[in-house]
């Protein structure tokens, strides 16, 4: 009686099973990569806004401080988006007839909010707090990039959990002096790690990695 399968069939069967497992894993892995790719996270993608507000002009060109508009960033979890009134401090006189600014004037007349498109948007099961980061020497540019070079605002960091944890595990790599937090062109010194370790001690920075820090 001849055998239906040759001896080689045994290894083919093994390889097939193995390949199936590999294929399944790579599909899952691929999915994981896609879900957290810069494209899915909408990183580096300038967002359309009802008014083409440019940080490049206002921050880079005019040198206005972040806190002139984002007034609550030092005291609260939420970095305020400026009220229409704040735009009107200047634009009641400047570019006061520009059609580009019509939505601002309309909002001021009617009291209806301008509906800005959100740029940085964490899932709502994550708790984030600006004030604690600002008071522990983490600069705006570390998380938002060179805002002063953005004609329209985009999201500069991946905002994945991995990204948050990377800094929470090694704050000494990113921390800067408190008076440089709002500075746009701060460059870390060459001995950042040693310098950072000193600041971490000075500002009493802990490494916060327990789940309940961010998921509460």
């Amino acid at each position: 009686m001849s055998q239906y399968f040759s001896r080689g069939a045994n290894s083919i069967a093994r390889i097939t099973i193995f390949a199936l497992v590999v294929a399944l894993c790579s599909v899952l892995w691929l999915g994981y990569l896609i879900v957290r790719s810069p494209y899915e996270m909408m990183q580096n993608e300038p967002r359309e806004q009802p008014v083409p507000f440019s940080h490049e002009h206002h921050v880079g060109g005019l040198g206005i401080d972040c806190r002139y508009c984002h007034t609550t960033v030092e005291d609260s979890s939420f970095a305020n988006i400026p009220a229409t009134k704040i735009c009107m401090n200047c634009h009641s006189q400047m570019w006061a007839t520009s059609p580009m600014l019509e939505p601002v004037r309309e909002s001021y007349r009617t009291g209806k909010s301008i509906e800005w498109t959100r740029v940085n948007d964490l899932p709502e099961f994550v708790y984030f707090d600006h004030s604690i980061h600002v008071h522990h020497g983490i600069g705006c540019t570390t998380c938002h990039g060179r805002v002063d070079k953005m004609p329209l605002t985009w999201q500069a960091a991946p905002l994945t959990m991995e990204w948050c944890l990377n800094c929470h595990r090694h704050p000494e790599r990113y921390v800067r002096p408190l008076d440089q937090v709002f500075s746009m062109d701060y460059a870390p010194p060459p001995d950042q790690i040693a310098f950072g370790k000193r600041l971490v001690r000075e500002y009493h920075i802990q490494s916060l990695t327990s789940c309940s820090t961010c998921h509460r």
Partner: protein
Amino acid sequence: MRISSLAIAVPLLLLTVSCRQDMQDQPKYKPLGANRFFADGRDARPIPAGTIARDELNDTDSFHTGEANGTFLDTIPLKVDSKLLHRGQERFDIYCSPCHGRTGDGNGMVAQRGVKIPADFHTDRLREVPPGYIYKVIKNGYGAMGDYGDQIPVNDRWAIVAYVRALQLSRDATLDEVPPDQRSQLSEERQPQPGAAR
């Protein structure tokens, strides 16, 4: 059997990947969130008339209005020390310098682009005005200048007033008024830039 249950479980597991939206966008109210339930379309609700927020009960006293019995306060109702002045400097640079310039002579970046040239702080009239007057300008605005009451809390307003006073004094200060140990430093720094300061 194993294989077939896997064949069912794996697609089911994959389905859960798309089921997170409820947690991602929860139906809760967030600061500046949009809301279709209310007519004005906002999550944030207006404060009911007559509500008094903490710290705002006394907003008719002179600390909050800059006035007492109908005249402007002629002193700063906080202890003026270097801490207050540094705070004032920081806040002035954030909120006032875009128009008034870092030294208060009215040539800030925005003024150069076309806002009405604001008042120079170093005129006799503005040197004479009482602190309460400057406080009032910050709180309520003045002429073409909008009010900054919403952006700047009460203590910071007084800190800015103190710093404006310091700016004004610095223009007329003589070398004798500088502490002796810092004089040499000043004259060194002044040499290369004649005419930069009066």
